[in-house]
């Protein structure tokens, strides 16, 4: 028998939901039997940190220098780094801080002198700083996607990235369209493969899986405006779970349009200063 894969599951700042999701599921725990689980601090006491890992799953978003140092440490420890959950893949809710008055946000929770000790950075997804090999999307991460990743890897196959927006699967399920009902669903511009979780329960897609790269943002915004959804609402929704990545995708599309001489109508959505969207790390990888 071949040697077992050396696997670690770690977290930086976050809600721990993704790691707990592993602990909470029979199937997920069962598949971990097939690997050499060298580290999983949420679930076990003795965790090996120095050796060469084959795969490290990392939950969480970089919000301070400590997170950044840990992230770099984990990257150096492993052959493959897998971002699990919206914090790691897209910045999730903590990254809203990039789009609001930073100082006000901070001062509504801490006092000035407390803030000095925090070494806070602008919250960013992990691929702003290091190379990420695979992404398991969702808030919390999609369990089926995690399971599939493990199965494919154990079989020695490449993990296939699903590349269709939410709407595709939603149409197949024939559940009807929330956008047509005038609800601000993010389905057309969001990465699919979550079994259309939210629309299925009569709830608009919240965009927690990040932007679907080939989305037609312009058509989407025009549609929302025609439904009378205020720009402020759309902006606020886009920035909730994957704001940084959505804004970058929109900016990219806008620039492409402008290069071909077309005028893009969604100026206001890209009103975040361009430099704020720049990646922070020395090595800029990303989606």
């Amino acid at each position, binding site marked *: 028998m071949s040697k077992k894969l050396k696997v670690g599951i770690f977290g930086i700042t976050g*809600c*721990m*939901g993704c790691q707990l999701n592993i602990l*909470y599921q029979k199937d997920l725990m069962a598949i971990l039997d097939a690997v050499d689980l060298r580290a999983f601090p949420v679930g076990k006491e003795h965790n090996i940190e120095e050796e060469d890992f084959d795969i490290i799953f990392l939950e969480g978003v970089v919000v301070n220098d400590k997170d950044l140092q840990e992230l770099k440490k984990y990257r150096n420890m492993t052959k493959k780094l897998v971002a699990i959950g919206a914090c790691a893949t897209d910045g999730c809710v903590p990254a809203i*801080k990039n789009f609001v008055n930073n100082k006000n946000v901070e001062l*509504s929770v801490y006092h000035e002198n407390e803030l000095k000790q*925090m070494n806070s950075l602008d919250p960013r997804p992990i691929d702003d700083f290091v190379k990420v090999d695979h992404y398991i999307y969702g808030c919390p991460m999609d369990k089926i996607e995690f399971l599939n990743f493990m199965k494919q890897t154990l079989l020695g196959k490449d993990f296939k990235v699903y590349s269709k927006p939410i709407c595709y699967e939603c149409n197949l399920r024939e559940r009807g369209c929330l956008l047509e009902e005038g609800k601000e669903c993010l389905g057309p511009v969001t990465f699919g493969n979550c079994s259309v979780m939210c629309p299925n329960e009569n709830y608009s897609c919240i965009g927690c899986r990040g932007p679907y790269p080939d989305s037609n943002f312009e058509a989407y915004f025009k549609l929302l405006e025609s439904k009378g959804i205020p720009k402020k609402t759309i902006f606020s929704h886009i920035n909730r779970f994957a704001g940084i990545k959505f804004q970058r995708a929109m900016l990219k599309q806008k620039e492409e349009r402008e290069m071909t001489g077309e005028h893009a109508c969604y100026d206001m959505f890209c009103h975040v200063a361009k430099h704020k969207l720049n990646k922070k790390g020395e090595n800029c990888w990303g989606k």
Partner: protein
Amino acid sequence: MTKEKKTRKITLNHITKVEGHAEVDISVKEGKIEHCHVHSVEGARYFEGLIKGRKYDEITLITSRICGICSCGHTIASIKAIENALGIKSTTQTELLRELITIGERIRSHASHIYFFSLPDYLGYDSAIAMAKKYNQEIKDCLEIVRVGNELVKLIGGRDMHPFVSVVGGFTIVKPREEFERVLDDLKSMIPLAKKTIRLFASLKVPKYKKNDTVFISLENHKTFPLHTGEIISNTGLKFSKNRYKEFIEEHFHNDSTAKFASIQGKEFTTGALARINNSFDKLSVSSKKIIKELKIKFPSTNLFDNNLAQAIEILHWSERAIEIIENNKFKQEKIIEPRLGNKNQYRGIGAIEVPRGILFHDYTFNKEGILTHANIITPTVQNLADMEINVKTYLNEFLKKRAGEDKTVLQKEIEKMVRAFDPCFSCSTHFLKVNWEEN
């Protein structure tokens, strides 16, 4: 130079098997614990700031992300604060469904904590995963209880973590009866496991330890075991409405101003499963009380290690309550109640509910358009932190009296045991970055 005796320092850099990242600093001098600092090293996420400027219907999606383990608790506390502020009176059905979602979360949170995090301490294992060979059945039981909890949350909330179906004014969807029946069957077949769990945890040898002056606070509503309603009471005779929480529960800043912790009328306190059972023992289900009597378990208890046993008892109590709710009610789709805004310049509301680890407060203020202008959130772990430090110190000093000069690794183990008994959740408590306790 002064002839000072050597001070031993113990730092636990990363407490494993707890929710979130935390560190404890202990200094031992002349065989006595001099200082004990428990501090969360989780990065700050500024939730109260992030929800500012957002409309009332966007808040809960964000606040649920405070914590993965009690996302349902944060969702419901958040909704309650919003509804109280905006004058929405939810229907009886909505209240029952909300009760179910919190119960589901309670069941799986308690089960995973006592089996996965605490049990290995008592059986001498590294983790539940390592235990699986010899204690296969126990792990299976735990995973089954967790599964049923997950199913219940999924049934009401749309998915088993960060539920989104539960919104201000009601539920976006109510599942058909068959699905309720399915979960009902699951719950019924889980009852024997819940009883087994109580027997298991009652049989464990927990350290003999007492701290008789502990203040236990919980909700109390005169009718049922506390969950979503009631006033805040303590075993020392305090009683006040949730709207007055700020008069009683203070947040302190320490000398160096980085430390912030909660106290009630100047004294540290404990909240959570043990506090609830100590304060509302009479309201436990009949069979819970029966098994407590049979196993000769004594409540009230001031031994914090009994918190695990209290959690086991709550699993049984709440499973029975969930069965009762599903059996006696036929749920149907209801219209979501919208608030009527504009008649006041400012709306303020407070939500206080019992979540797995204790009372959770969400306090919001909205302007006349329903935009949030101010928020304050106090999580149970924040409330428990000060008492956690004191208990670690007291317990360790008692331990050292009997076993002086004990090896550092043994002490570390005991510290972790005590911290874990509280079932702390450091993701939640993050905005109290560092808590220092100093001896006078």
